[in-house]
């Protein structure tokens, strides 16, 4: 069917060439956007055959349109570039131009260009051997032209749709489009569509051996083209007519049209079609009972034809028929046998070809399947690798994240612990240096001063200073020896004894313990001793505090016992609870349990005889 489309282009050659001269003149007198349009028109004028010129002017128009930022000019130029590529059978690159144009094209502003591009794309697909895709684009193009009422372009679209419908085996629909195309072509006197369409319809009917219709359309084409001296179209019509005439047994007409066709094809140098015409001529002679002549022509043809050509079968069959008519049955048999041989070979060849095609197809399919399979495998492998690497990367990332998180957690924890330690140090110090104690101590010093007891005052000041020094030092130390702790306690109790003049205290250390070799956190017991003083023995005449350090296996047990009123639960116990809280926290920091600190009333004979606090420091004694 391809030749029909080519015909479609060739038919308008003369009409367009006439335009070119005036276009060149216009080109020299125009500029800017107008010049781009002229360039486009020139490019279009070459569409009848000179692909290189179409490309040249298209490219020129495109460049200038680009410089001018003239979008429609660019689109039109791209359309021409696409058409140029299509003309030289570079369908893929033509599609690239068309699609680029389409992407730059506004379907609202320039629907005509869009439809035109659809036409171009449809054509490219048709030539590529994809009529089904072509059908979609031609349909869109036709819809576009219909909306715009561009009947002339619609004519071409319908024609193309007919051709494509035929290609996809939809003969009746093809006929419908042909008829539509024909109607518009006739209305607008578009010979370049009308003539090929007539031929197309004629071919359609010819294939169906609908002789009347085939004759009608072929003859119409013949007459119009003869009148206008359009030889190519005429020749096309003549290619059909003799056969139709012969089938209608109008042999003289068959003969004359065959001869006319022969002459035309001879003139056009198309020897293949010339031989077809010669066959038609021979057939006509046979119809006219001029068997000798027919046979002679057949013989000539047989010699020039190769076995593979389908015309040879026809000729051999005709020769056999003619020989029979001449009574030469021997020859008829020979021709028939030759025919059969050619036919057989042809069909074997055909079958072989079909087989080969099938094999090829199968092979191609298999290959492409294999390729697909390999590609799939590669993809799977790639994915697997990707997945593996993702897994590895995620694994590493998770690992790093965990490490980082643990590090940060550890650091945070240790920082927090450090902070807590510092806070504890501070609160410990604050607790020891509690203002109540300090200012009361200062008040005691003041007493010596106002009493004029200078020596006692001096001694007290020095003891107080020594205690402050110890606090400042020890609150920063993690551990001090038990002997140091006892010295501090003695210092503290001596200072307190100046406030509580009746205070008695006793510090006892288990004989099994060497206080110089045991280390404990500083000031552990002091908050409880202070509680005992402030809340236990304060105001008592015979107030007494006993402090003892005892060994319990590897543990050191500290006991603070007073002979006061016992535990109080009212608000006066604020300071007490704070001291206890700080000590508890310190104990927790050391990893001991709440059981290690016990505070209880000392009850004897059912009466409360003070408070006993016991504190166990784990693993303080070696051996």
């Amino acid at each position: 069917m391809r030749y029909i489309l080519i015909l479609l282009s060739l038919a308008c050659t003369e009409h367009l060439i006439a335009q070119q001269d005036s276009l060149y003149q216009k080109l020299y007198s125009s500029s800017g956007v107008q010049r781009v349009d002229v360039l486009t028109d020139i490019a279009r004028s070459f569409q009848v055959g000179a692909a290189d010129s179409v490309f040249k002017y298209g490219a020129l128009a495109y460049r200038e349109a680009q410089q001018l930022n003239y979008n429609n000019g660019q689109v039109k130029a791209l359309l021409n570039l696409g058409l140029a590529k299509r003309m030289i059978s570079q369908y893929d690159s033509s599609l690239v131009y068309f699609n680029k144009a389409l992407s730059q094209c506004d379907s609202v502003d320039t629907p005509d260009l869009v439809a035109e591009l659809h036409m171009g794309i449809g054509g490219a697909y048709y030539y590529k051997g994809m009529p089904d895709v072509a059908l979609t684009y031609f349909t869109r193009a036709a819809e576009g032209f219909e909306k715009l009422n561009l009947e002339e372009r619609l004519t071409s679209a319908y024609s193309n749709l007919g051709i494509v419908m035929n290609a996809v085996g939809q003969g009746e629909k093809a006929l419908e489009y042909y008829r539509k195309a024909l109607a518009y072509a006739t209305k607008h006197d578009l010979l370049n569509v009308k003539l090929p369409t007539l031929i197309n319809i004629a071919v359609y009917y010819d294939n169906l051996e609908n002789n009347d219709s085939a004759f009608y359309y072929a003859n119409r084409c013949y007459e119009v083209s003869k009148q206008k001296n359009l030889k190519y179209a005429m020749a096309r019509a003549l290619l059909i007519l003799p056969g139709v005439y012969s089938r209608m047994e109008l042999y003289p007409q068959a003969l004359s049209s065959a001869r006319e066709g022969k002459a035309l094809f001879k003139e056009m140098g198309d020897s293949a079609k010339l031989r077809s015409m010669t066959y038609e001529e021979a057939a006509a002679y046979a119809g006219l009972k001029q068997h000798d002549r027919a046979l002679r022509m057949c013989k000539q043809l047989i010699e020039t034809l190769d076995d593979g050509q389908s015309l040879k079968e026809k000729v051999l069959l005709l020769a056999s028929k003619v020989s029979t008519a001449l009574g030469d049955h021997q020859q008829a048999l020979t021709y028939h046998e030759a025919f059969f041989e050619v036919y057989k070979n042809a069909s074997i060849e055909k079958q072989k070809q079909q087989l080969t095609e099938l094999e090829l197809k199968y092979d191609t399919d298999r290959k492409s399947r294999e390729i697909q399979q390999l590609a799939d495998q590669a993809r799977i492998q790639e994915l697997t690798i990707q997945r593996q690497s993702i897994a590895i990367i995620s694994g590493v990332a998770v690992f790093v994240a965990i490490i980082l998180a643990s590090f940060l957690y550890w650091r945070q924890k240790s920082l927090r612990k450090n902070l807590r330690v510092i806070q504890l140090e501070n609160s410990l110090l604050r607790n020891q240096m509690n203002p109540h104690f300090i200012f009361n101590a200062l008040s005691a010093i003041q007493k010596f001063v106002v009493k004029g007891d200078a020596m006692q005052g001096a001694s007290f000041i020095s003891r107080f200073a020594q205690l402050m020094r110890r606090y400042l030092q020890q609150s920063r130390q993690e551990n001090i020896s038990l002997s140091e702790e006892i010295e501090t306690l003695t210092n503290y109790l001596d200072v307190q004894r100046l406030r509580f003049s009746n205070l008695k205290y006793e510090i006892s250390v288990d004989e099994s313990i060497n206080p110089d070799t045991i280390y404990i956190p500083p000031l552990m017991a002091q908050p409880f001793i202070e509680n005992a003083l402030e809340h236990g023995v304060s105001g008592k005449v015979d107030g007494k505090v006993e402090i003892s350090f005892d060994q319990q296996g590897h543990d050191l047990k500290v006991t603070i016992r007073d002979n006061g009123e016992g535990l109080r639960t009212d608000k006066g116990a604020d300071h007490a609870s704070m001291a206890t809280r700080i000590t508890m926290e310190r104990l927790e920091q050391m990893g001991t349990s709440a059981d290690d600190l016990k505070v209880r009333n000392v009850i004897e004979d059912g009466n409360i005889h003070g408070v006993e606090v016991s504190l166990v420091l784990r693993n303080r004694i070696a051996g």
Partner: protein
Amino acid sequence: MRIALIDDEASVRETVGIILRHHFTEVQIAEANSVAQGVSIVNDFKPDLVFLDIEMGDGTGFDLLTRLDNVSFPVVFVTAHDHYAIKAIKFSALDYILKPADPEEIVKAVKKAAGAMAKDHHAQHDFLRKHANDEHFDRIVLSDQSNVYLVKLEDIISCKAEDNYTQFMLNDGRELMISRTLKYYDELLRTQGFVRVHQSYLINLHHLDRFDKREGGELVMKNGSLIPVASRRKEVVMEALRHYKAW
């Protein structure tokens, strides 16, 4: 004069006792070392002045006051450190002394008590008990020679220094002359939305209308009164104003 010393610290009692006897020959002193003992000596001894410790072994000075039926004598609180309770004492317009006691303050307290007419301090003590643990106050006790006023902080427009007195300008137009320095109130009220804008002026930002920058700068209060601003305090005023507005 009969003076009661209530403190669990023997050295404090001894010291204050020595100082008192040194300055006042006709002084009679009773001592107590706990809340319980304190209640009984106040009832028996009927002192003209009480030096009262805040933290004692068996309770606080406030507890002691609660346990008395009628407190017709002046109380001077004695405390070891700047305890939170000091703030409540200040807002109650009651007197206090910090340990170790300054002999001068002790003398001043005695002289003040001797000069003052017997006055019911019940309202002040009541206020103190209610707010002993408060951080923020919306009222303050202002006490002059004859009256005890319970004033809402939001009703105070400004305070002006008058020698050792402070004049309070109130929202309802009243002006109170209180025998405490402006410095005392500045320290007390600066956390309650008051700003010292001038050597002689403390204002309540709540009542500030605008800052008139003309003529060296003057503050216009909402009631129309004008307050001068010290030139080197302008920044502080502006800053306080911004902070106040934002808050």
